[in-house]
């Protein structure tokens, strides 16, 4: 359930105290006000953005799990394993960025599923070789790029556009590397995503 913010009361508090607070103090107060705000939605669009960001968070959690399964599969060569772990690290940073954004909006970040749940829904039991792991990763990264690009036009808070675009860029970088590792031809047509 979304914990929303009373934006008006937050603005009132900040307006009344801004002159006597440092920037750090104001941010700390903002955080406290957000946490103390209770459960009345400030605006339906803020709640909407929280829902969309939570879906993106679920996407990142699934990606982290997929790379974990790949890393533990013993199907990857040491060089590819290093890349997989690096990409997983990027997804963990995306997860943290999304979690921070959800909390900033007064929402509650969804918890990830269990590793066996991810393994089941991704069908990882059928992975037999490194190429299979890479194909799964490529499918998820390509899809994630499109998902983040598609998300931008649905987000209400403009400061989230950059977050979505930046994350889409990371996912497309991953997709390019994975496509290259699989020997895929460079796409002849642009745009490649979106």
């Amino acid at each position, binding site marked *: 359930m979304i914990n929303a913010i009373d934006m008006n009361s937050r603005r009132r508090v900040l307006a009344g105290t801004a002159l006597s607070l440092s920037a750090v103090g104001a941010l700390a107060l903002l955080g406290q006000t957000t946490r103390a705000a209770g459960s009345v939605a400030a605006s339906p669009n803020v709640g909407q953005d929280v829902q969309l960001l939570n879906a993106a968070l679920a996407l990142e959690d699934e990606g982290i799990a997929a790379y974990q399964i790949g890393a533990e599969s013993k199907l990857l060569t040491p060089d590819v394993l290093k890349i997989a772990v690096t990409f997983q690290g990027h997804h963990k940073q995306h997860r943290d960025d999304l979690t921070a954004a959800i909390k900033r909006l007064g929402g509650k970040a969804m918890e990830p599923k269990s590793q066996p749940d991810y393994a089941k829904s991704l069908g990882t039991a059928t992975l037999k070789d490194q190429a299979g792991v890479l194909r799964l990763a490529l499918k998820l990264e*390509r899809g994630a790029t499109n998902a983040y690009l598609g998300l931008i036009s649905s987000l209400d808070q403009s400061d989230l556009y950059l977050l979505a675009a930046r994350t889409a860029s990371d996912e497309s970088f991953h997709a390019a590397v994975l496509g290259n590792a699989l020997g895929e031809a460079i796409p002849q047509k642009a745009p490649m995503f979106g």
Partner: protein
Amino acid sequence: MKLNYLFWAAALLLASESVPVTAARLATPLPSAPQPPPGVPTRGAEIYETKCGACHSLDANRIGPKHRNLFGRKAGSIADFHYTNALKQSGIVWNAQTLDRWLQNPVAMVPGTAMGIRLTSAQDRADVIAYLRQNSR
């Protein structure tokens, strides 16, 4: 004679008011929803993989619910998937028309949904819908 005259005068008066309206109605085609282009399931499979596949699969609930047998299904009705309240309460039944609206702008159709991605091309939507229809009973 006088009665006849009055009768025709009244008839003409009525006709003068009703004929233009009727004619205008006949001349103006009834508004109808634009027909989507025919969809190609094989192309829809590719689009589904690249644009929907980050969150959806035919046979597994992931970030979004599984899609096999989607046609004719009530939105929010897969028992082991956690939907938003907005979608559960939407009353939508999935068919070509509702899917076309949904894929065009899910947030506008069901405010509060967790799905934000849009398919802006009518042809892409038609292809994905054809693919989903092909994978329904």
